[in-house]
C-alpha cells in the first residue's frame, strides 16, 4: 500500500510534536475538584483505551476481509492491529491501576469495565500467541479467532456488567468540563496519529518480510 507508506513519516512527526505539546495543555486544564492532580492521568488513559478499542475493531474487520476475500494485505493489517491492541492495552492496564490506587485505594477492582478490558486484551494476546506458535496456517486460524473476538465484545460487556459495576461511566467524556476539552481531544488526536503511524509501519514490515521470504525461496530453487 504505497499510499499508507507515505503516511508514515508525516503522521509520526505530527504525533511526536503533539505528544511533546500535550503536557502544556494538560497542565493548563482546570483541576478536577474531588480528585485533583490524579485526574490528569485521564488525558492519557482514556485516549489509549479509545485507540485500543478502535484497533480491535480494525483487526476484526481486516480479519473478516481476509477470511472471505483472501487478501494478503488484510491479514497484515489484522496482525499489525492486534499487536497494537496489546500495546495500547498495556498502557491502559498500567495507567488504570495507578489512578485506581489513588481514587479507590486499591490497585485492582473486579469491576465491569476493568474486567472486560482485561478479557479483551487477553483475547488479543491469545491471537498473538496463535500467530507466533501456531505454525503454518495460523493466519486463517487467527482471522477466525479475531472474528469471534469481535462478536464476543457485547457479550463480555453485558455479562461483566451484570456481574459488577463501579467505574466512572463513559458519559464522563460527554459531560467533560469545557476547560478540559481541548487538552483531552488534543491527546486523543495524538494517540490516533501515533496509532496510524505504527499501524502503517508494522504492516509494511510484514509486507517486506513476506517479500524477503519469497526472494529467499527463489534463491533456494
Amino acid at each position, binding site marked *: 500500500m504505497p499510499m499508507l507508506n507515505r503516511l508514515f513519516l508525516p503522521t509520526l512527526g505530527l504525533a511526536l510534536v503533539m505528544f511533546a505539546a500535550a503536557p502544556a495543555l494538560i497542565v493548563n486544564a482546570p483541576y478536577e475538584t474531588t480528585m485533583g492532580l490524579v485526574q490528569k492521568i485521564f488525558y492519557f488513559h482514556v485516549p489509549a483505551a479509545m485507540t485500543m478499542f478502535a484497533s480491535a475493531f480494525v483487526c476484526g474487520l481486516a480479519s473478516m476481509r481476509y*477470511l*472471505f476475500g483472501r487478501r494478503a494485505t488484510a491479514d497484515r493489517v489484522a496482525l499489525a492491529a492486534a499487536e497494537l491492541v496489546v500495546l495500547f492495552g498495556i498502557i491502559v492496564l498500567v495507567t488504570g491501576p495507578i489512578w485506581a490506587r489513588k481514587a479507590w485505594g486499591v490497585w485492582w477492582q473486579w469491576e465491569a469495565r476493568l474486567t472486560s478490558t482485561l*478479557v479483551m486484551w*487477553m*483475547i488479543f494476546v*491469545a491471537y498473538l*500467541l*496463535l500467530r507466533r*506458535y*501456531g*505454525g*503454518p*496456517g*495460523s493466519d*486463517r*486460524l487467527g*482471522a*477466525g*479467532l479475531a*472474528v*469471534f*473476538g469481535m*462478536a*464476543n465484545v457485547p*457479550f*463480555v460487556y*453485558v*455479562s*461483566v456488567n*451484570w*456481574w459488577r459495576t463501579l467505574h466512572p461511566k463513559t458519559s464522563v467524556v460527554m459531560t467533560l468540563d469545557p476547560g478540559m476539552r481541548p487538552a483531552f481531544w488534543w491527546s486523543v488526536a495524538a494517540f490516533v496519529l501515533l496509532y496510524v503511524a505504527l499501524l502503517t509501519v508494522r504492516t509494511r514490515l510484514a509486507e517486506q518480510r513476506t517479500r524477503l521470504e519469497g526472494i529467499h525461496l527463489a534463491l533456494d530453487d
Partner: protein
Amino acid sequence: MSAWIGGFLRVAWLVMRKDLTVEMRSREILYTTAFFAASCILVFAFGFVKQGRPVDDVSAGILWIAIAFAGTLALGRTFERERTNETLQALMLAPCDRPAVYAGKLLGILLLLLFVEVLIVPMVALMFQADLFRSPLLLVALLAAGTLGFAAVGTLFAAMLVRARSRDVLLPVLLYPITIPVIIAGVRGTAAIMQEGGEPLARAWVAMLVFFDVVFVTLSLWTFEAVMTE
C-alpha cells in the same frame, strides 16, 4: 430448501453417530473426562472447604470450572483421534456441506459433555451441600445453554487447531477468553438458582446464554468452511 435441510440434518446425524460409535467401542474419552472432572472437584474441595464447610457460593464456580476443564479435554481428545488417523481430512473431502460436518461434531461433543454433567452435578450437590435442584428445569436450561455455547466455540477452535503446532496448549488459550461470558453466566446463574427468590435472575442469565448460543453457532457454521480450507 427442505431437501437441503434434510441433507444437512442427515450428514450431521451421520457424523455424530460415527463419533459416538467410535467412542462407545472404547469409551476412552467418556471415562477419562468424567474421572478428570471428578478429580477437579476434589482438588477444588481442598482449596475451598474451610473447617469442614464450603465457602459461600463456591459450588457454582467449581461446577462450571469442572465443566470447562473437562470440556477442553474432551474437545482435544476428540479431534486428536481424527488427526492421528487423518480422518478429518477424509471428512472434509466428503461431498457434503461442511457446516453439516461441524454440526455433527458439535452434537457428538455436546452429548458427551451432557453425560459428564449428569455425573458431576449430583456429585457437586452432595459434596458441597449445594441446593442445586431447587428449580431443576432452570438448572437443566442453564446447563444445556451453557454447554452448547462452550461446545460451539470449542468445536470450531479444536477443528481449526488440528493442523496447528502446539495445539494442546493453544486450545485453552484461545477458548477461555472467548467463553468467559458463558462461564460468568453459568456460575452466576447457578448461584442465583441456589438463592431464595433468585429465579428471575437465573432466567436472565439463561436468556443471555441462549443469545450467545444463537450468535456463536451461526458464526461457527458461517466461518467453518473458511477456516478449514487450506
